[in-house]
């Protein structure tokens, strides 16, 4: 009973406490308005270069947009505890760590889904993105899996926030790197081998590929391989993220670093 409350009630409260952009005045410009232009920009750049259809860029960027939550909100969920000096009080409580951790991931993932959905709507309204109606449920599923995967990845980065001070540097770099390596605007086949290899180990890559196929009418069965890979990648990151969280907690007690800021 307490576990459920810790996950949902606790997770919700800590999200409000730590997510820097929670106020609508921050949220709307940062997570919704800015990314509109990201989609517009890449679609127009694609048109200018006479490349793939608009759909290619809309799908790629609409999925990637959720990374603003998945990468940055995740980092904030952990790293901001240091800023407020609440990491020590948090870890001094007897609460089990896994529910705390999962509780923090849920709002972030929900946030990512909202952003992605918004991106797809913009693509539809402004750029005429029209996937076949029958594909939409499958598309939604792929987006959910991708968002989960990115959130887990984000929390892996965020766990370093328990140890390192400038973790936002890492998350910024990771966010930009994902733009390039995950096939958001350039298909993996056009990238040098090493980039594509790294990309295949990152979230989004498989999800975006699957979503693109679905958007032009492929069946869920035909992309199931990609979807499962995305799910697997997310699961691995989840385990690593939690492992790091616990490891750094123990290390923090040993090295007396829980309160350094």
């Amino acid at each position: 009973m307490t576990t459920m409350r810790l996950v949902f009630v606790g997770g919700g409260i800590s999200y409000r406490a730590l997510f820097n952009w929670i106020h609508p005045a921050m949220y709307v410009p940062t997570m919704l308005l800015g990314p509109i232009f990201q989609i517009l920009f890449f679609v127009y750049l694609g048109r200018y270069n006479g490349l793939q259809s608009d759909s290619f860029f809309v799908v790629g960027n609409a999925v990637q947009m959720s990374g603003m939550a998945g990468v940055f909100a995740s980092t904030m969920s952990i790293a901001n505890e240091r800023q407020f000096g609440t990491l020590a009080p948090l870890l001094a409580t007897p609460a089990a760590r896994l529910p705390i951790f999962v509780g923090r991931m849920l709002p972030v993932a929900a946030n990512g889904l909202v952003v992605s959905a918004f991106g797809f709507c913009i693509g539809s309204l402004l750029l005429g993105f029209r996937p076949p109606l029958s594909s939409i449920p499958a598309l939604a599923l792929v987006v959910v899996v991708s968002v989960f995967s990115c959130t887990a990845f984000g929390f892996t980065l965020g766990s370093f926030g328990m140890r390192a001070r400038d973790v936002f540097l890492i998350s910024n770099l990771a966010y930009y790197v994902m733009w390039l390596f995950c096939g958001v605007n350039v298909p993996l086949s056009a990238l040098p081998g090493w980039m594509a290899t790294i990309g295949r180990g990152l979230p989004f890559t498989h999800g975006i590929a699957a979503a693109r196929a679905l958007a032009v009418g492929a069946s869920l069965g035909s992309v199931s391989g990609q979807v499962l890979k995305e799910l697997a990648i997310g699961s691995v990151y989840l385990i690593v993220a939690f492992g790091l969280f616990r490891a750094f907690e123990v290390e923090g007690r040993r090295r007396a670093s829980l309160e350094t800021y």
Partner: protein
Amino acid sequence: MKRALRLTAVGWVFHVKGLTMSGFFVVTTTFLPLVLATTASYMARAGQRQGTLLYVSLGAGVMGIWSSTLFGSGGAIQWQRWQGTLELIVAAPARFVLVILPLTLATATVGIYSLASTLIWGWLVFGVPFHLVHPFLFVLAVPAAVLGLGLLGLVLASTFVLYRYANALSNMLEFPVLFVTGLLVPVALLPGWAQPVSWVLAPTWGMNAIRQAALGGSPLDDLAMTLLLGACYLVLGSVLLENFARLARDRATLALT
């Protein structure tokens, strides 16, 4: 007047040094243009466009200057908030605009690292030839663009003083300006509403000046336009700063993060 210039110059050097030493700032503002340049270059190579990749490198580089200005100016004000020093600055006797102006100019100046690294990157990775048609005018165009962007930063900074959620604006304005000012996609190809907006933004003209200096054309009128817009921003920014500072004091938001 002399004191104003001196304060500006001293402040500018101070902030350039400070920003250069912030690893976080330099890395994040240089990294984005590199990624953008790489993405756009791959797209250009794959597409049917015939133009040179130098166009892409320059566009991404100027994007870097904008990024640096945007995050530098917004970030600086926000950083002052978090440290609790925004109030101190406002309470200081020097005119507020003379405190903020060197900062925004410095952030634009530090953007030159982005421009340089993007050009070098383009040359290293994509073999982009760094051949300038009008090298002398290029050397004039770059500082002019920096000045124009730095002064646009001043206008932005004034809103950041009033608006405690300034970070939201910084986050939001990166791509819109990239899009609307035609740094990588010519303004002529943008939706109709974007064109008038692009005319009042200094980066549009600054980019044209730099581009024409590098790739051929006559950059002088674009250069002049950049500087003219810059002067307008200076006046606008000064007025806004004084008023917004007063409003912030009225609403007691200077101390809030």
